[in-house]
């Protein structure tokens, strides 16, 4: 009797959590109208704002120069590019100073903090910004030449305080987890983020994010103690009622690469999860005006954990029911949450197809196979990272574990976004 009660409660909870996650993931495809609404509006060609683009770089001498040269090809030319390097990182500094000497639009700011992290670097550069709008990129980003023109237009036509553009991991064929990692980004920027924006609570992404400089100074820039400074900024801006506009176009997304090893992915996830936990604990989201928004905030910030554990628990529960020969009724109950979980896989397969179509990439049968076979291990990895994040936060370890980049997304056969016309 107790067992049955427990099984019913567990199954119902897991089923609900998996279904909500799936439903929100599919937000963009709900109706043809919602899908259409996720696009960037076409710009009128005129430029009104000046931009300060921040580019923190740490031990990224290998990719920095290429990223900068590409950014400089922007068709919107009213911008300054601020490279932020650490005083203890001579290799990257050298590249940065060379670039600054070569291009007048480029400046270098040196971060003198003893313990370094990304929010501190950004805050160091913020006072020197002269543009109307501050944008953030990462050192390995591939940025489209028309992005700034579109962002300029979005600021002019929607009186937004923040414009979040799309980011997409591209190197789906690099290793076993990269295809799943790419799809996570695809579903997040293509779909889920728009739902968050519509509901008025949005954890911003780490780059391709643009904020009005005056507002950014008013809120004091980024939180130097937070491991997810991007998410935190989004929450704080949402809480004071700032308007956030999300626009997505496969052509204009910023291209990035997946972490170069499963361990790096594991560490990156730990950092994000711990960051989400910190934002949850800071409680700025309590200032959100409506109860619905606060509920969404709570769920969104807790969702890495919900997501990590539902997958593993669902698989484990069903396997146990089969292995231990539990009564048929209980076994069927434990199957219930597997329905949305496997349903998610169906949509991931079609999502991967769509991803390939939108980015002009050839997806082979092997990639689909990796996507399917990788599920349990990837679930374990996410669950492990979530557990580690909780443990680290509990023990008070809040140092920054950086993701290393080697430039795997800069393959010669990758279509260069600069060729596109807008």
């Amino acid at each position, binding site marked *: 009797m107790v067992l049955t009660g427990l099984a019913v409660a567990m199954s119902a909870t897991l089923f609900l959590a998996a279904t909500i996650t799936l439903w929100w993931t*599919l937000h963009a495809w709900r109706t*043809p109208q919602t899908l259409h609404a996720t696009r960037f509006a076409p710009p009128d060609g005129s430029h009104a704002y000046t931009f300060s683009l921040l580019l923190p770089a740490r031990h990224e001498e290998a990719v920095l120069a290429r990223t900068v040269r590409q950014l400089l090809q922007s068709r919107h030319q009213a911008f300054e590019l601020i490279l932020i390097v650490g005083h203890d990182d001579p290799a990257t500094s050298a590249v940065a100073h060379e670039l600054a000497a070569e291009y007048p639009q480029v400046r270098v700011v040196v971060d003198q903090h003893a313990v370094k992290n990304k929010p501190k670097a950004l805050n160091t550069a913020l006072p020197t910004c002269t543009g109307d709008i501050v944008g953030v990129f990462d050192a390995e980003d591939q940025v489209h030449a028309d992005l700034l023109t579109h962002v300029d237009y979005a600021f002019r036509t929607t009186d937004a305080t923040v414009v979040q553009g799309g980011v997409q991991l591209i190197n789906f064929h690099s290793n076993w987890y990269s295809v799943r990692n790419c799809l996570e980004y695809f579903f997040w920027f293509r779909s889920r983020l728009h739902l968050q924006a519509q509901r008025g*609570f949005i954890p911003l992404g780490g780059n391709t994010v643009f904020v009005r400089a005056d507002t950014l100074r008013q809120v004091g820039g980024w939180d130097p103690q937070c491991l997810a400074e991007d998410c935190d900024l989004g929450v704080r801006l949402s809480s004071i009622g700032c*308007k956030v*506009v*999300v626009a997505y176009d496969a*052509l204009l997304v910023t291209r990035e690469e997946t972490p170069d090893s499963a361990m790096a992915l594991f560490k990156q996830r730990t950092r994000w999860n711990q960051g989400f936990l910190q934002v949850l604990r800071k409680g700025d989201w309590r200032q959100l005006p409506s109860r619905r928004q606060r509920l969404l905030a709570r769920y969104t910030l807790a969702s890495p954990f919900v997501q990590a554990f539902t997958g593993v628990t669902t698989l484990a529960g069903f396997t146990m029911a089969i292995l231990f020969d539990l009564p*048929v009724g209980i076994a069927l109950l434990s199957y219930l949450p597997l329905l949305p979980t496997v349903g998610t896989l169906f949509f991931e397969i079609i999502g991967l197809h*769509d991803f390939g179509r939108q980015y002009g990439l050839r997806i082979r049968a092997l990639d689909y196979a990796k996507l399917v076979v990788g599920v349990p291990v990837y679930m374990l990895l996410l669950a492990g990272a979530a557990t580690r994040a909780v443990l680290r936060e509990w023990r008070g370890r809040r140092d920054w574990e950086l993701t290393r980049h080697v430039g795997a997304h800069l393959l010669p056969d990758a279509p260069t976004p600069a060729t596109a016309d807008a």
Partner: protein
Amino acid sequence: MTTVVTEAPAVAGPPARPAPPAAPAPLGRRRHRADRPLLLGLTALTALVHGVNLGGGPVFGADEGTYLAQAWAVREGVGLAHYTYWYDHPPFGWMQLAALGWLPDLALSARPSLVAGRVAMMVFALASTVLVYLLARRLRLPPWAAATAVALFVLSPLELALHRQVYLDNIAVTWLLGALLLALSRRRHLWHYIAAGGCAAGAVLSKETVVLAVPAVALAIWQRSHRSTRAFCLTGFVAAFVLTLSVYPLYAALNGELMPGGGHVSLLGAWFHQVAGRHSSGNVLDAGSDAYRTVDAWLYQDPVVVLAGAAAALLALGVRRLRVPAVAATVMSLIALRPGGYLPAMYVTQVLPFFALCLAGLAHTATVLFRRGTWAPPRLRRPVRAAALVLAAALAAGVGASWYDGNRRLWREDANAGYVTAGRWVREHVRPAQTPRIVVDDALWPDMVRAGFAPGTGAIWFYKLDLDPAVMAHLPGGWRDLHYVVVTPMMRQRPDGLPTLTEAITHSEVVAAFGAGAERIEVRRVLTELREATP
């Protein structure tokens, strides 16, 4: 406040990425002020047509009692069937009957179980009526054509007879119509396509043969969904359909009954039996075959909808807006009529709603062509239109006349009086405490259980007497352990190979008889020397 950029139109991209020119508008809501009164009127008409003399006609069918007995087993927590469940059909159909069991009890607790079961079936008849109307409207037929489809569907004596009976096909059709309605969603919401997949699975889990109509549901989604979201819509449909359906083989696997094996029933074993092992109904063109007789019986009851409907379905394949019902009807008809297939008598009930939709749809197409046409000079149009109206009225009158006899029989004659009185006689004259074992057919079985006979071993369904080892284990003396046999028309048509039953009937005397000729029902007491010696 946060918002999403919504301005159209899109940027011109490279040819690889076709950009839709403007925000796709939701398909218009085409409500007509006649819809509501028409729907109410048609629903009332269905209730009336079905409700009159519900228990009297048609004759209790062979399977009706089985499904009710299985519903009884679900409701009482006995299991999925009153005897060993052998995966003959998926159980969702009679699970719904079990869930609806409270309904007839409200008004008719003294009535025979089969009448009560037929009351529960009215829920599905009414739901199907509403769904056929709405489906016709979603196929962009005007209200008059939708009402015509419903009238053809409800008033056909063939459909009325089948619809009254406790057949799983009727339940499955309701779910199938629901799936089609969702597939033709006007808002084109992903959720509707997922729900369509769930409904289609519900239909197949109610009666597996409906699976033949599932391609028509997929076609509906393909036709109606927007290009930009089509892949996701179809994925949602397929995922919901497959995953919901997967519960059934999983149930079998958890019971160790998925694969055939020694000494147990199995899902695949039953499936092979249904597909390959069943006695073929023969070629429908061969006058001596079962298939010919079945189709002939349909044509006898309603030649109009069956013949004209089949022709209409073929023609409607060429009309885009009617292609969905046309494909459903054509695929189901062709596969059922293939030579060597098995064609059960109630099968046609799955096809009739689509025949009705195709007929009404073609009538509408004809009027559109007629109006648009430049076939005659303007001064001739008015008289020709009048002539067409007269012709249509004459057609309707002719069809009505051809239905009159069949429907009158269903409304007036009591074909089941023998069953009802035999059941009552047993309840009043036989004491289960003294003579606990009675052999009956499945139509009487639920009533015997209600009368106090132990289900399964006391009230014995004649079919299980020799075929179910679990039942024979209770009868060490064979036929000598039985007390009563109620011989009904259904039992007289029994297959060979039931020796215990034949012995019991041979060694018995008639204690009460009802009806005459082929419809005669006899209550027979089994005579055994053994029992006479030891009272």
